[in-house]
């Protein structure tokens, strides 16, 4: 009994922090209609800055805390003013989601550069000894956490309900167009909300830091928890987000206490998926939901570049010839990375069908790589299945997951597929970590055999290279056949205008599902090949970081072009290998490139290439309201 109470109290404390992060989410969502995935990163920026001031520089606690909060808020203001706010007036909501994913990666990468990859811990604010109340031991830091949260909630409430500034913020949330007409400076209000959310996250991060160990990429856990909390509580509801956070915290702690800490994450995500299934609008829905129809929906026009007839054949044959001779040009030491580039490209091809052609954002592409990879690898390693059969089994399982997920999200519009895929990817990741006996746990599955078909073994990088190249050629041809015909036109119609698409008889949910299934299948195949190639598979190879990385590759390379993403994959895979000293900056560069591409280069690198080289007469990409 006492243990249960302790566990619940631990959960409430953790949940309080989740709730604080969620509050920031809800604030930004209410005012802008965008989900800010970088929210959690500000917690860790706050905590890491606190460490620097308090431990490295030896400042007194109160001064260090004030300075750390200041640094976090300043970071929020700078990022908001330079990227988030200007992008908001030009990009559709789905691109904003990708942009903030890029911001999350950028902040993590920056933290890696500044603070390195080691874990940090902070001393509790008022000593280690817990206080005993009615026989229950309470960590003193708990009082600080609850106190900070209470202050934040009270402050936000007062600001929103009792001040002129708050009234202006609420007007922006209600109807930005009307707010503008009333003379409210909407961009300034947006920047204010974004900065305030960063500040709140910073305070939360600093308060919770003494009870956990944190490092440069712990922020994503807060993003996920805050995001889940807000989805469980009801997008945009301030009260709901705090309640959702508490629920999530308690569920996680109970799962950790009574099942296994490795599954704690999984339980929370199962809760999220369950909420989406039963009450997609959240358990505590905001009374006044934002009117979707009042926001001008901005569209990005990809450059319309078409290669047809002879030129397409010439270009295609040239590309195949280049693939064939590449191994003689590439230094042998780089061959492994080239193969990995090819394998990742297979997965990104699928992502392009889903995101570039059908306009659906997936934050869990690597989850399907994990399903395909682990299924094939486990069956081949521990059960003696032939690799091909293992790949097939992985495909079946991935497709089953994809169908189940799309059935959950099909009825829902907006961010829900992104939300569900995020949850799915993390769930798979935590299963891969948690099911130690089957998957090898966090340290990975070793001894995976090389790929072979009957007597043919693909154990060398060169053999694997030609296998992967052949798979890519076939896959590109197949996808091209579908995408240049009725199937592709239906997908593109769904991406740009679902209402007009339906009015032409296009079954929108069905095409979304088909695109999702195609992307899952490609990822699954890619994951299997990945495991066979490296003879090894670990959760962080196919985790959230990989999903985000693949989005960056796709967007930087060029969405909706099928082959364009190869530029992005090659850039982000080969460069860090060629210039080893750059490896430290990889995450940072990845995030920054993603942000820049979303913001300034809607056609990606390939768009520029296509316009300059392939089709100089094509009109440049432009964005318009």
């Amino acid at each position, binding site marked *: 009994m006492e243990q249960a109470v302790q566990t619940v109290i631990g959960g409430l404390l953790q949940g309080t922090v989740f709730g604080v992060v969620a509050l920031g989410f809800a604030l930004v969502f209410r005012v802008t209609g965008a989900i800010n995935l970088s929210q959690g990163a500000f917690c860790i920026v706050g905590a890491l800055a606190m460490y620097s001031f308090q431990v490295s520089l030896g400042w007194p606690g109160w001064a260090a805390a004030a300075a750390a909060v200041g640094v976090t808020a300043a970071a929020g203001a700078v990022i908001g003013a330079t990227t988030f706010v200007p992008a908001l007036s030009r990009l559709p909501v789905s691109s904003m989601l990708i942009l903030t994913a890029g911001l999350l990666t950028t902040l993590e990468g920056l933290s890696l550069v500044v603070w390195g990859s080691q874990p940090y811990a902070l001393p509790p604010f008022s000593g280690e000894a817990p206080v005993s109340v009615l026989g229950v031991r309470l960590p003193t830091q708990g009082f600080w956490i609850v106190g900070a949260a209470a202050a934040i909630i009270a402050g936000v409430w007062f600001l929103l309900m009792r001040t002129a500034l708050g009234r202006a913020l609420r007007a922006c949330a209600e109807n930005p167009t009307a707010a503008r007409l009333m003379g409210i400076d909407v961009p300034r209000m947006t920047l204010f909300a974004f900065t305030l959310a960063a500040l709140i996250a910073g305070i939360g991060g600093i308060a919770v830091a003494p009870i956990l160990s944190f490092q440069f990429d712990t922020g994503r856990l807060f993003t996920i928890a805050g995001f889940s909390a807000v989805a469980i509580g009801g997008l945009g509801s301030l009260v709901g987000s705090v309640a959702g956070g508490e629920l999530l915290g308690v569920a996680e702690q109970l799962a950790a206490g009574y099942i296994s800490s490795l599954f704690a994450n999984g339980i929370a995500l199962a809760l999220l998926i369950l909420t989406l299934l039963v009450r997609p609008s959240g358990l505590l829905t905001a009374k006044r939901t934002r009117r979707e129809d009042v926001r001008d929906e901005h569209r990005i026009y990809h450059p319309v570049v078409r290669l047809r007839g002879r030129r397409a054949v010439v270009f295609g044959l040239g590309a195949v010839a280049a693939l064939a001779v590449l191994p003689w040009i590439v230094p042998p030491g780089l061959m492994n990375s080239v193969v990995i580039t090819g394998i990742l490209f297979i997965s990104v091809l699928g992502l392009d069908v889903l995101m570039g052609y059908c306009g659906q954002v997936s934050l869990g592409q690597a989850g399907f790589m994990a399903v395909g990879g682990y299924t094939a690898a486990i069956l081949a390693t521990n059960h003696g299945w032939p690799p091909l059969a293992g790949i097939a089994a992985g495909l079946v399982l991935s497709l089953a997951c994809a169908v189940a997920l799309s059935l959950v999200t099909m009825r829902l519009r907006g961010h829900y597929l992104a939300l569900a895929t995020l949850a799915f990817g993390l769930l798979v990741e935590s299963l891969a970590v948690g099911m130690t006996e089957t998957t090898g746990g966090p340290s990975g599955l070793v001894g995976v055999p090389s790929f072979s078909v009957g007597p043919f073994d693909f154990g060398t990088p060169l053999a694997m290279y030609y296998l992967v190249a052949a798979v890519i050629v076939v896959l590109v041809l197949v996808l091209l056949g579908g995408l240049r015909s009725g199937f592709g036109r239906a997908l593109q119609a769904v991406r*740009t205008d679902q209402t007009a698409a339906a009015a032409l008889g296009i079954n929108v949910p069905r095409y979304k599902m088909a695109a999702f299934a195609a992307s899952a299948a490609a990822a699954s195949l890619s994951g299997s090949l990945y495991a066979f190639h490296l003879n090894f598979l670990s959760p962080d190879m196919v985790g959230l970081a990989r999903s985000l990385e693949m989005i960056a590759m796709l967007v930087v390379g060029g969405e909706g072009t099928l082959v364009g993403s190869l530029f992005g994959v090659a850039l982000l895979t080969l460069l860090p290998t060629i210039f080893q000293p750059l490896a430290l900056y990889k995450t940072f560069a990845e995030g920054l490139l993603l942000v820049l591409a979303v913001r300034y280069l809607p056609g990606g690198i390939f768009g520029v290439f296509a316009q300059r080289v392939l089709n100089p007469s094509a*009109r440049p990409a432009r964005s318009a309201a």
Partner: protein
Amino acid sequence: MSVPALEAVNLAKSFGGVRAAHDVSFSVPGGSLAALIGPNGAGKTTLFNLVTRLYEPDAGEMRFYGRPLAGLPAARIAALGLVRTFQAARIFPGMTTLENVLAGAHLHVRASAWRQMLWLPGARGEERELVRRADALLDLTGLLPFRDAAATDLPMGAQKLLEVVRALMARPRVVLLDEPAAGLNDAETAELGSLLRAVRASGVTVVVVEHNMSLVMGVADQVIVLDTGAVVAAGTPAEIQKNPRVIEAYVGKEAA
């Protein structure tokens, strides 16, 4: 007496306090061309949205060749042969003019996605046939020069025309056109008139929302006049032109 192609019975829809449709009944015989006219905000677009089930009606019923449309998703309605265009041209950005038109033929693509992906001769032959039909329609409407341009680069009038062509590619039994002549110059409007006649002559029922009175009076078999969400009058163009309530509610305002 044959079943009307499109029939509305006591349709009603309010937005907050605004009664956008109020007890609207009309019927359009198969193979005829009906014009829906009325001042701005009369509820013409709302009526289209109710028929194609973008909005759920508060009351009333729509029937398509006698078949109730209640409860059908928008894509199913198109599959039955009821296709519409939108007042603000909703062409697909990121696609060429030709691809936009081909997208209209979605319901007539027989080859499965698999056969397209495998480049099977049947699928490719079908695609060539669709392109041929699309080219013919583009030629007929004078859009052929824009064939391979990005559709969003077309001038506004051409975009509206493109949307009509796209709807016709679906081979509808009934087509609903929302202000297709908006943004067209006089010559183009005259061409649109002959296109509409040709469409009717091919057996397709047309319902068109239009402000241009000379176009309406020249091509319509039946004119339905809406004002503030209710049908004010319905009849042949000649009858409508003589109807004092119409002159007061609509033509009068136009003249003023």
